[in-house]
């Protein structure tokens, strides 16, 4: 179940210092078919978690030692994209607000209805999955961009800026025919089905 190949099977990581809460969450989430791993402290989780693992983090906000907020900060520093759902006690709203501002996807107050938690977890997993998919697509686009020659890159830039082949030929002091050939090569290498598709891909990776 572990390892880089488990993108298909996300894991719910539960971090709570209370053994009973941890154990109950594990049982609940397994009963709805999730893979669950539990940790008694933020440090334990940090030591065990590999960045490439998909899923979401269910995190107690108040813990001795490293608090939930401190763990969130450490993950942010590592550019982690793992979505975090905070579980909070009563009267922890200011902390929850802080957590949301720091990028948490949601928070839920103890005790909670199981369906509420499960819904939030499902949303978080969807988000993680689309994040990871988007991340994968962007990486593909970047990889394709890297296959372009410098000249093709110049042509691409001008094409996505809306310039006609004639204008590009003038700018680059090339024949119109040569530009057409470069342009066809770019479309092919970028696997673009249309000009609009090509533009979208370039915008996606912020290269425009």
């Amino acid at each position, binding site marked *: 179940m572990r390892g880089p190949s488990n993108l298909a099977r996300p894991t719910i990581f539960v971090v709570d210092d209370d053994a009973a*809460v941890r154990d*109950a969450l594990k049982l*609940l989430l397994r009963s709805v078919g999730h893979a669950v791993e539990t940790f008694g402290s933020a440090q334990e989780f940090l030591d065990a978690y590999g960045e490439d693992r998909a899923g979401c983090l269910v995190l107690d906000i*108040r813990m001795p030692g490293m608090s939930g907020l401190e763990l969130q900060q450490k993950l942010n520093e590592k550019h982690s994209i793992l979505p975090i759902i905070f579980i909070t*006690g*009563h*009267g922890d709203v200011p902390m929850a607000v802080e957590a949301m501002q720091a990028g948490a996807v949601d928070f839920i107050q103890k005790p909670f*209805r199981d369906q509420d938690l499960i819904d939030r977890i499902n949303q978080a997993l969807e988000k993680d999955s689309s994040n990871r998919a988007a991340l994968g697509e962007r990486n593909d686009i970047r990889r394709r961009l890297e296959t372009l020659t410098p000249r093709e890159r110049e042509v691409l830039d001008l094409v996505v800026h809306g310039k006609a082949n004639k204008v590009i030929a003038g700018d680059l002091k090339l024949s119109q025919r040569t530009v057409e050939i470069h342009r066809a090569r770019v479309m092919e290498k970028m696997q673009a089905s249309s000009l609009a598709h090509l533009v979208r891909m370039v915008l996606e990776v912020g290269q425009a």
Partner: protein
Amino acid sequence: MTLLRVAELQEERAHRLEREFQAVLDAAVDAVVLFDHEGRIELLNHAGERMFGYNEQEVIGLKVNILLPEPYRSQHEDYLRHYIEAGEPRIIGIGRELIAKRRDGSEFSAELAVGRVQGTDPPRFVGFIRDITVRRNAEEALRRSEAQLTIAQEIANLGNYVVHFDGKYEDYWSPHLYRVLGRRYGEPYIAVYEYLEPMVHPADRARWQQARGELDASGRQMDIEYRVIHPDGSLRYVHHLAQTTRAADGRPLRQVGTLHDITDRRRAEDEARQMQDRIAHFGRISTMGEMAAGIAHEVNQPLTAIATYAQACQRLIAQADASKEEVETALNHIGTQALRAGEVIRRLRTFVKNREVRRELIEANRLLEDVLTLAQTDARHNGVRMLLEPAPQAPLVQADAVQIQQVVLNLVRNSIDAMVEVPEARREIVLRTLVDSEGDVEFMVADRGVGVDATTMAELFNPFFTTKPGGTGLGLSISRSIVRAHGGKLWCGANPGGGARFFFTLPAVPASAGS
């Protein structure tokens, strides 16, 4: 025997009688005065001469009433005349007390007895006069001291009694004892214990009977405080002291006792204690208020676990391939967690409830352990470790457990607050008990926080002094009054190596008293 011889003998006998009479007169302590039916003095003995300052020769033939001032002077003349005219019995008067008058005009208290000399006509009389100044003074002094005693008893609101066992003397109730026992002075006499017993408050009666039994049976003094209900229904507190005096053979002769009405003192003490208890209760509530977040968390954790287990069980049961063991385990956990939440609430209720203060024998170390469980959540939330160093002797103290826990908890709370700013690795509280050199039990709460500076130290125990935003400033002042009410003291000092240490003592109870 010749007639002459008889006459001689008779004369000799008369002489002898006269000498003997003279000797009696001379030796008499009382003044003796002989006078005739007109009151003229015929004889005054030596004691009379000394008592009145006259020579016998000076007064012979004078009226006997010169020895009296007015109004006794005229009264005496009337007496005499009346007696002679009416021919009343031979004794005119016994032990009449009057004032007599000396030659120099000074007067003194005297007791006068007058008798008629038999067989004389007209009648002659003999008067005996006794100077009773000393007795009178003694009586006066006694009366005065009795009056003073009565006043003193009124002021002190204390009465005393004497019970005699041999029946030779009358039992005694001092005038104020009537008041102490709700009776009017002069009401008919009732034996004190028989009167007292039904008055004793039913709740105190067994104790009273035991003390009384011991007073009768052993040499032990009675020394108890109890409540009595007066005939008018009012409730009073009395302090009863009594002891038994015994003959050489151990037979009880008498019991002497005092009953002191201490109602006012007891009421004042009760009020002071109630006030203190109310303040202490307020202190506990405000401490709990400060700990509210931690407490809510502590109850919330088991509730969260319970809710989650229960919901998981429902889902598991709904599944075709549900594992029975898994469900059973979860149900077990639910039970355990429910008890855990109940325990938290029970502890809180015990701590916060406004209850009667009870001093009991408790192990000092147990007090610390209980506080540890109460404070643990709060400490954990603040990254504070708590260490227990219990005294190996496991000393006992006589204390109200909740109030002492309150003191310790208050000190722990302060310590936690003092360590918010220090690195987490340093955040440590040591709770310690030990038996000090005087045998008292010393409690210590030591932290590694910011410590207490000299200015703060001076004000630390003042009510409403606080260094915390939102603090009441009452915690330490309440804690100190609780410790004082337990007969101990509370103080603070620096912790070598940084931080503060708070100490308090409670008087030790001998281990044997615990059995």
